[in-house]
């Protein structure tokens, strides 16, 4: 098709279109989380962003990571955050502004941070290899094997950390 070659930019591939959709979802979620005044809406935006990030993992062919993202972040962390919102509700709705006095300076800093980082990232020529993966199921099994061999110490320490967190959190949260 000669007409399409005349475009000033290359047409996106299907994968790129899907990436843009997922990224749009994630960005919307992140913006709701940061900006909406209502805490519950923040939590819903967070869930949307979590789903978007899971989609990004799928695009990066990290299947197991995507499913753990949904299970842990959406299923557990977001639920826990909502529970905490319900437990600590009081004067937080509407009456006072949702931001503190650092709002303006933080907004400028965040925007600058993003712009500078983007400017840097776009201009670096990253080595992109992106080799073919051996097989997804094989990869998940390899991951499991690594937990109990190469990464044994962090793995067991993580279990202990979670145990300690559980004990501490129960102590703190009980009436």
């Amino acid at each position: 098709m000669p007409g399409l070659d005349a475009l000033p930019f290359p047409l996106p591939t299907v994968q790129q279109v899907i990436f843009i959709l997922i990224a749009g979802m994630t960005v919307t979620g992140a913006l709701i989380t940061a900006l909406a005044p209502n805490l519950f809406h923040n939590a819903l935006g967070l869930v949307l962003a979590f789903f978007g990030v899971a989609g990004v993992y799928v695009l990066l062919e990290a299947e197991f990571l995507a499913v753990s993202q949904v299970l842990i972040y959406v299923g557990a962390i977001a639920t826990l955050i909502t529970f905490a919102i319900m437990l600590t509700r009081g004067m937080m709705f509407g009456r006072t502004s949702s931001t503190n006095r650092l709002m303006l300076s933080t907004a400028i800093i965040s925007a600058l941070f993003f712009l500078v980082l983007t400017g840097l990232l776009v201009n670096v020529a990253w080595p992109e290899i992106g080799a073919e993966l051996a097989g997804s199921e094989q990869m998940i099994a390899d991951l499991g094997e690594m937990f109990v061999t190469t990464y044994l110490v962090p793995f067991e320490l993580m279990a202990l950390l979670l145990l300690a967190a559980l004990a501490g959190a129960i102590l703190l949260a009980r009436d």
Partner: protein
Amino acid sequence: MQHWSTTLTNFFVGLGLPEPVAMAIAFIIGATALAIFAPTLALGLIWITRKIISRIQDRIGPNRVGPYGLFQTVADAAKLLSKEDISPTDADRVAYNLAPILSVFGVIMSTAVIAFAPGIIGADLHVGVLFLVALGSLGILSALMAGWSSNNKYALLAGFRVIAQLLSYEIPMVLAMLGPVLLAGSMRLQALSEFQSLEIAGFNIGLGWTAFIMPAVFLIYFISALAEGEQTPFDLLEAESELIAGFHIEYSGMKFAMFFLAQFLNSFFLGGIAVMLFLGGWQGPFVDQLPILGVVYFLGKAMLVYAVTQWIKGTFPRVRIDQMMAFAWKVLVPMVLALILWQMIALKLPAPTWVQYAAILIGNLGALALIVVILNRHLSKEEIRTKRAFEPTSLIGTMQPAPPSPGN
């Protein structure tokens, strides 16, 4: 066995279409079939439920619309379509409207990884089992959104209750799913179904069910699935006879119908997962020769499991919320953890496979026996027996006269 999408793609390529287009068309056809299959199935499920429950309660059930009342659900759906869509004032619009959509979305998505027959599975994801569990968190999310956005105390309370229930029973459910995954060494549902074959003299009779090797794990999965599907005896959310409708109290018309649909489909698919993981999936006699028979076997088994849950619904009383929580955390979780631990040890015994399986089976039977003994001892304690017989905690619904006061 060739995947259905390959067959369809080849067919369209044969018609002269380029391959990506052919594959896209094949995928769209498959996805449409699944998206239509799910709501249609729900209509059938509701009819079956009503028939079973009414037989248990010595009634006839729907029998007016169509043969055996088959079209009663269709009529009900049409009625719900023509109902006014009321949304309460001060409801949070976005979350209120999104909640029913999300609940149906979750159950339709779970059809994607259901293995109907050899080669007939929407997408044989490598994380299939966990994908199904992850979709469960959509149900939690929808309950949360519905409860919060309705601006109703009862809805919010019911939402929190049901979330506590779903969370508590998810742990034993996921751990029970680990049993078959450990045996088969795969999370793909097709691989799990294939694993459960049993060949006798070169003929696959399809009875290598993992439930035969680990009956206790299966039982734990089944009980947790009852709770996850909000079925009796764990239907505290709805408690049709004494509480108001739960987190969807403020919903009417089609939005309510969506929650209803999602609930029926959810409990059916939880049964379907039980079939795929523990009861052989599409395995059965002659399925190797005629793969399409697998659909019959799978749906037949899943229907049977569903019928059992409805039978339980018609028979058992409801548990209290404290009993329910204690049962999940103090009985199911320790038991399934111990069973998984035992299975891990048994699978590494230096012995032939059948000895390992026998060891797992012995462990499971031991666990079942232990449970029976403990329950027996607990229930036969004198104080509990007297309490049960003479001192109901509440007199509502017990049909007993109030105990005479000591003054008389």
